[in-house]
């Protein structure tokens, strides 16, 4: 196995120019649809794996190294080159540039569910139906399969999922004397109690995060984005969105949440020293806590997401898939690796051992998984809670075909609510307006 660390691209005008030149080389990309009919049967794929060759795999999954080791044990003739793309955003940029340049395109690449449309619509992903992957549907949870199969094709195999859960610091809760909130009304009360106990502490942090906000809207039953390829409908004032915004507004207005951006050093520190007493994020969070917040060991617990009316509902937060770019050089081998990676027991076991939260029903329901007692969480069987959360995910959610761009302008519009304590609904309306105009400019028929 060879590891090539992705070197950070220098920022600034030079990079922009370079990207510009790369993009133009590609000429006319055309839009929509997948490429054409070079599919293969399961036997042909298996034969290719036995024969061997080399492929490149781009990912930011920390478990990848272990998985590749396992893979190369099973198929010693195949050499997989791992390229660490650092994170979702950087991975997208890198992939976009490679495809535009028509050179150095990976054979298998990790993409966040929400970024699939932006590549798929430009015909840059391989429709895996050609390789018979539609037969694998029953292996995965409905929500993750829904994320990879859209616009009449299958554009990846789900790697993990991120049903949301409420992670909290039991020690702080005990100190303040509050119970775990089961509804959002209770959540606000708890936030108030923690603030009154010590104004420097907060129940949660948020300074306007698009990933969190869209997941919260999803949980509230909103479906603000609908797209069937060319036609996109945006309604950021639908019932669910409004429900979320009205619930959340007092948290901003009364300064009940700390305005601290997530993933900063300060954030990790605050999670460790009890300044921030809870986070509502995806089921991949335990790995992050164990890794990034060693001081919290034994103090943290997990509970189901608070709800609006007591009926359990949930949403996904993050999660990604592996796909095969249309321009990949060795598609047959890539298909074999991908199938092994996200559906074989060896691979998924390796993924789970190192803190991954799988997307396969069998593993999510296995006794071994559900019975796991996390030392970090004081011996709590965390996967029982997280796994139950996966079953409650609301169906029908879609992201925008240009979600990463939409997220990049989130702070300009919705984010202002956090800054000025202004209306979230007004911010969402402004976000909608910007997205309608962007989408129209990008050739979509946008209703909104």
């Amino acid at each position: 196995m060879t590891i090539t660390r992705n070197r950070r691209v220098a920022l600034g005008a030079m990079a922009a120019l370079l990207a510009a030149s790369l993009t133009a080389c590609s000429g006319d990309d055309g839009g929509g649809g997948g490429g054409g009919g070079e599919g293969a049967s399961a036997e042909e794929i298996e034969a290719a794996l036995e024969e061997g060759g080399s492929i490149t795999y781009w990912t930011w999954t920390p478990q990848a190294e272990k998985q590749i080791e396992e893979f190369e044990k099973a198929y010693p003739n195949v050499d997989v080159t791992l390229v660490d793309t650092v994170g979702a955003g950087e991975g997208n940029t890198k992939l976009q540039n490679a495809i535009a340049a028509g050179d150095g395109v990976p054979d298998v690449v990790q993409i966040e569910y929400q970024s699939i449309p932006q590549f798929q619509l430009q015909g840059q992903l391989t429709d895996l139906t050609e390789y018979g992957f539609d037969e694998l549907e029953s292996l995965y949870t409905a929500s993750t399969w829904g994320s990879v199969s859209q616009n009449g094709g299958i554009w990846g195999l789900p790697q993990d999922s991120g049903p949301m859960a409420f992670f909290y610091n039991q020690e702080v809760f005990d100190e303040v004397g509050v119970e775990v909130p089961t509804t959002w009304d209770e959540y606000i009360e708890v936030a108030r109690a923690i603030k009154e106990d010590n104004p420097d502490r907060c129940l949660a942090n948020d300074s306007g995060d698009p990933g969190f906000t869209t997941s919260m809207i999803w949980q509230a039953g909103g479906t603000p984005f609908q797209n069937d390829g060319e036609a996109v409908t945006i309604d950021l004032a639908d019932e669910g969105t409004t429900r979320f915004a009205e619930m959340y507004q007092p948290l901003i207005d009364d300064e009940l949440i700390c305005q601290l951006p997530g993933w900063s050093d300060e954030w990790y520190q605050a999670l460790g020293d009890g300044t921030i007493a809870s986070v509502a994020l995806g089921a991949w969070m335990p790995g992050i806590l164990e890794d990034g917040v060693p001081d919290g060991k034994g103090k943290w617990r997990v509970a189901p997401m608070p709800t609006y009316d007591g009926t359990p509902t949930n949403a996904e937060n993050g999660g990604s898939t592996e796909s095969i770019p249309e321009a990949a050089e060795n598609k047959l081998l890539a298909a074999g690796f991908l199938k092994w990676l996200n559906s074989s027991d060896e691979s998924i076991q390796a993924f789970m051992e190192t803190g991954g939260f799988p997307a396969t029903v069998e593993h999510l329901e296995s006794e071994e998984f559900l019975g796991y007692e996390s030392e970090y969480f004081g011996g709590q069987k965390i996967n029982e809670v997280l796994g139950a959360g996966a079953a409650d995910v609301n169906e029908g959610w879609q992201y925008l075909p240009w979600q990463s761009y939409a997220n990049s302008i989130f702070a300009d519009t919705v984010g202002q609510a956090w800054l000025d304590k202004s209306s979230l609904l007004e911010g969402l309306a402004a976000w909608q307006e910007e997205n309608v105009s962007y989408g129209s400019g990008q050739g979509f028929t946008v209703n909104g």
Partner: protein
Amino acid sequence: MSAAGWSFVTPFLVVFALMIITPLVYSMYLSLFRNQLMGGTTFAGFANYVTAFSDPKLWDGAGRVGLFLLVQVPIMLGLALIAALAIDSGRLHGKSFFRVALFLPYAVPGVVAVLMWGFMYDDRLGLTGSLNDLVGFALVDPYTKKWILTAIGNIVTWEFVGYNMLILYSALKTVPNEIYEAAAIDGANQFRIVRSIKLPAVRGALVIATIFSILGSFQLFNEPNILKEIQPALISSYYTPNIYAYNLTFVGNQVSYAATVAIVMGLITAVIAYVVQLRGTRRDA
């Protein structure tokens, strides 16, 4: 021109053509297209330029760097001039210490400088918080809409005062000692010497420093882009024209329009820099 002449000039011309002319021409070519997720890349003529001239986001950013230029550059160059004169006066103890200390921030990589200041500006854990605690009220609050541009100006000034000081100081060093002797014999005091000898001597260098600073202001990118990580809502995705072009390229799938933005801003910068140079040299004459 002789063959020998060409052989001396050719290496330069080749590099110039590859590194300066080619990217410019290429950007102009790019700016004539339109990129769409649905529909790909199509020829659009001058449509991007029409869009650019009525694009509120572009002009918001351009206005911001314009304001930055008008306020920050005079302050920074004023401080640099005072520092250069002080070090040159010969009345300063530890002059080489001051020279190095002032220049040191320039040696700190820009990203590190911004991260450092970004931390100090934090009112919970940073220096700003301690200061506000000390006086008992919010004396300084850099992370507000009102102050953020000033806060960026402060970082840029900190980074570049020393660099500009060095340009001005080296110009002062070129004044022959005899002139100062003559001035002293004529009975000129220090202020008179500054006004009649030193300031005219640094005028050329000042024009150069001003032009560099104009270019720097219009290309403002690093400082706000890094602070955006800490304060996403305070710094918009079009805070400066460079940030705007960067986001259009890397997340907006609008390489062609980004090229247009770059060309429009390049033209504006060139015109302003040219005017400053004309004015500067006319006074020289």
